[in-house]
């Protein structure tokens, strides 16, 4: 039995509002080749390939059929999940733990400049009771945010503080798509898209692909680079719909995912043991709600945690030092980018946003369909 899963290397494409210079397959190849080069292994030595893609966003049914080749899976074992990008790392980790494979490439892509994202997100909804009532990702995200039990003014200021923090962090990160900071005044002056979400809280999307090379403990220890481990991982799904008394903002799915990941990693006090986190922040409310669900802030104190700088660079648990999705909105691939950034921190290769000697951090991916699917990864380098 393999004891734990490690990361041998990681890669990503350049990010742009539109990557019209490449077709989807070429975008996938760019990330896969980059990850294999970083891991220092040849495609021939790769055990299995795990892809995460969404046909309806890609505009091709069985989009893995075209992506398998450029992902490195030609005449190899491959499998795909359609949940969310970081679930490729979940599935790849499980395949390593099965003992069947020594190495696995986990890859995901998001080229949403090619398709009507908001309209496609409406397809997720029940055609009888929900679709006629005007739902999409943003609308549902706003609805979830409305259940957070906090004074309205404090909530708005905390959300703006998170956008300002992540955009400031992103401005220092050479990997980020948006590199311009913003101000709380600018965020709070922007119009509501769907109350309480404002236009400046919805980052512009970019095209790109992200890949990780995962490996067995034995294989990682043979690498010349100091090891980084995915010490624990878990996933969870929240209720579909609302039962009385179960506030959506409680993020039951994220709590379950975190509980599983913490148990596997032996983390019992996340607020003190998790030194930094890369958290899904498609809207600042997503990050705000995650503070409590992940146990980084105590119950009911998420907004204070944001406003008092607990999640800022230099805070007790810096969150999204990379700039997060607020700076690099990779939509379907956003969760995998969180893992990549956490990996680079623990590999001491995060560049200008590098922490001093971090030992343990967390990465979180979520289906942008809010409060539903969540994946949590505890990474450490010892």
């Amino acid at each position: 039995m393999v004891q734990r899963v490690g990361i041998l290397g990681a890669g990503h494409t350049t990010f742009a509002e539109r990557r019209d210079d490449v077709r989807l397959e070429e975008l996938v190849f760019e990330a896969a080749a980059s990850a294999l080069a970083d891991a220092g292994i040849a495609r021939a030595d790769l055990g299995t390939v795990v892809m995460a893609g969404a046909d309806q966003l890609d505009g091709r049914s069985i989009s893995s059929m075209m992506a398998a080749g450029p992902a490195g899976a030609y005449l190899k074992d491959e499998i795909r999940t359609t949940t969310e990008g970081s679930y490729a790392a979940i599935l790849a980790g499980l395949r390593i733990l099965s003992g069947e494979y020594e190495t696995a490439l986990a890859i995901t892509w998001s080229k949403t400049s090619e398709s009507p994202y908001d309209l496609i997100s409406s397809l997720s909804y029940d055609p009888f009771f929900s679709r006629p009532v005007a739902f999409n990702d943003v609308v549902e995200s706003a609805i979830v945010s409305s259940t957070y039990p906090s004074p309205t003014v404090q909530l708005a200021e905390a959300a703006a503080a998170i956008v300002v923090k992540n955009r400031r962090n992103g401005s220092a990160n050479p990997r980020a798509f948006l590199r311009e900071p913003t101000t709380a005044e600018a965020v709070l002056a922007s119009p509501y898209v769907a109350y309480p979400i404002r236009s400046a809280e919805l980052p512009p999307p970019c095209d790109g692909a992200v890949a990780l090379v995962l490996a067995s403990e034995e294989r990682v220890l043979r690498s010349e680079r100091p090891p980084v481990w995915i010490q624990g991982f878990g996933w969870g799904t929240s209720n579909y719909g609302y039962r009385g008394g179960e506030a959506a903002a409680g993020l039951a799915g994220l709590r379950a995912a975190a509980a599983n990941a913490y148990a596997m990693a032996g983390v019992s006090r996340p607020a003190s043991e998790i030194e930094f986190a890369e958290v899904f922040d498609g809207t600042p409310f997503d990050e705000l709600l995650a503070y409590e669900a992940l146990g980084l802030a105590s119950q009911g104190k998420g907004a204070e945690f944001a406003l008092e700088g607990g999640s800022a660079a230099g805070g007790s648990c810096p969150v999204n030092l990379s700039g997060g999705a607020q700076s690099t909105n990779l939509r379907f691939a956003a969760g995998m980018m969180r893992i990549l950034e956490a990996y680079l921190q623990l590999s001491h290769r995060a560049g200008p946003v590098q922490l001093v000697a971090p030992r343990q951090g967390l990465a979180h991916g979520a289906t942008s369909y809010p409060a539903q699917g969540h994946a949590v990864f505890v990474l450490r380098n010892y």
Partner: protein
Amino acid sequence: MGQDERVEAPLIHSGEWNIHYDYAVGETATRFFSRLRDEGKIAGKRCPECKAVLLPPRAYCERCFVKTEEWVDVGPEGTIEAFTIVYEPFDGLPQPPYAVAYVTLDGASTAMANFVRGLDLSVPEVAARELAVGKRVEAVFIDARKGTITDFHYRLK
């Protein structure tokens, strides 16, 4: 062969699909929508084991994994669980502004989403205070009902 130094604008080839679906509503939701249309009543189904009254009605309880049989009329009043007010247009959605809320109707165990109408939405913060979680609403039925979920909407009490 020498290096080709022409710089060409990347080509975009467009594709479009107009796919029509005919979704079977099923006996349970058919009965729900028929009563909504013909009698202006909202009914959920009670789980024989956990006694939860499920709304939208389901033919089975997912938790207890048993069929539901008993119909229970609920509402017309209820409590807001969650809401939003949409101010920007989206593909495939109505012209803004409009308000949407999840409401647990009196007698139901789960919340059901619908539009909230009859409220001035021009000042977001003011409208949001009116729609706050915990506020009471009632279901209002339109005259020209078609057997769809928008045969009714919510209105603040």
